[in-house]
């Protein structure tokens, strides 16, 4: 058995007296796709932000490729380079074109030369099928296109793992397909992914594992089949019943 790419151990996160995560543990193997489901406010998004240290945990430890990234003195910027993140609200840089959005990290963080960065950025845009929109500004793109640019931007950093925080929730239903297609393609290429999503179809088709979170803890996890067909916990069942309606 290979060593896990990500190991989360008893992670807590609170904001003042508000406890959002109450001891989450999760292990992700390379090339695995894990989908996190659960009601809103259950701590899924917070968990993602703990993993890439945007909001470091208040307690607990996280290892990324054998390195404990929650240890004191870790260069958090370096860690984030290895973790791609895609947001519900896209968060494209509004003053830059699609190409500029992908390039800026390559130039500023990976210190690539401009022409090299441009070539790589074009390659990443092609990967998400948007080479022809390279010179459009975010405001000139549809929601689905924006999210695909955001994915290309994350891919440009050559991440070892990708986090998706409800990537299709802000999209009109007819636009979710193109984003999910790109994600599916990434999964098939072997990208390790943690996806917070309500897209049960995607979870069924693409996920290796599904974890159900509620009230700051992982209630239950397993293969999509196990979780969707034979959930063990009553809370899981209730949630699934709710969402299927």
């Amino acid at each position, binding site marked *: 058995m290979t060593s896990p790419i990500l190991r989360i151990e008893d992670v807590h996160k609170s904001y003042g007296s508000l406890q959002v995560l109450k001891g989450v543990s999760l292990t992700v193997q390379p090339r695995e796709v894990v989908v996190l489901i659960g009601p809103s406010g259950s701590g899924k998004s917070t968990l993602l932000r703990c993993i890439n240290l945007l909001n470091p945990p208040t307690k607990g430890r996280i290892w990324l490729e054998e390195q404990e990234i929650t240890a004191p003195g870790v260069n958090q*910027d370096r860690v984030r380079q290895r973790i791609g*993140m895609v947001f519900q609200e896209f*968060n494209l840089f*509004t003053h830059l074109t699609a190409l500029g959005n992908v390039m800026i990290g390559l130039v500023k963080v990976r210190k690539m030369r401009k022409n090299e960065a441009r070539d790589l950025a074009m390659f990443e845009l092609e990967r998400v099928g948007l080479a022809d929109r390279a010179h459009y500004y975010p405001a000139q793109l549809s929601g689905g296109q924006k999210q695909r640019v955001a994915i290309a931007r994350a891919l*440009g950093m050559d991440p070892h793992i990708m986090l998706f925080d409800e990537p299709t929730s802000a999209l009109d239903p007819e636009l979710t397909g193109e984003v999910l297609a790109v994600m599916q393609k990434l999964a098939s290429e072997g990208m390790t992914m943690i996806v917070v999503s309500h897209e049960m179809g995607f979870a069924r088709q693409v996920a290796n594992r599904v974890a159900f979170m509620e009230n700051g803890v992982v209630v239950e996890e397993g293969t999509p089949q196990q979780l969707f067909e034979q959930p063990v916990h009553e809370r899981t069942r209730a949630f699934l019943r709710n969402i299927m309606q």
Partner: protein
Amino acid sequence: MVQDLLTTFTFIVQGLWVTISVTAVALTVGLALGMTMAIARVYGHPAVQMAVSAYSVVIRAVPVIVIIFILFFVISRYINLSPFWAGALALGFASGAYQTEIFRGAIQAVQPGQMIAARAIGMSRLQAIQSIVLPQALRLALPSWGNEATLVLKDSTLVFAVGVPEILRRAQQVSARTFEPFLAFGVALLLYLALTLMTTQVLRWLERRYRLQM
């Protein structure tokens, strides 16, 4: 009459370059101060934030003319400041306080998601401020900044208090000699009007050129 107008104009217009230089120096100094202090105000250590607020409050409470006098009569006991530099820097320090507020507002108006996304691709805080937040804040600040520029242009008349012969002073000189205040100050008015129009046109062009697509 035409001859009078011509001599009056050629005399007063010599102050144009002085007015432009004073305004340009003041705006540049104010821009550097304002941007630095706005960043410190939003992202800095609480003590730094307090210091910036104190500067902003104190400077905005003091009439610009007093700052000019302090620089020219007090500070220049220790540092050799010509009237031009004392006046222009004083205007710059004053404008810096106002520009701090302009840029602070603009930085805070940039969506928080921009900073988060920048950090998520591995940018340091400083890099994110530099390449993501500031370029957007500057665009958002442009309209207010243009307003500040025209205010500084008008405040530039104050530097005459320490003997810098800008447009208005030259108009006074002509008026004293010819006893035709109407002509002299009319020419001054036209020059200021032209400068203000030029400034607003340039800024409007910049605004169009760098408009943020939201």
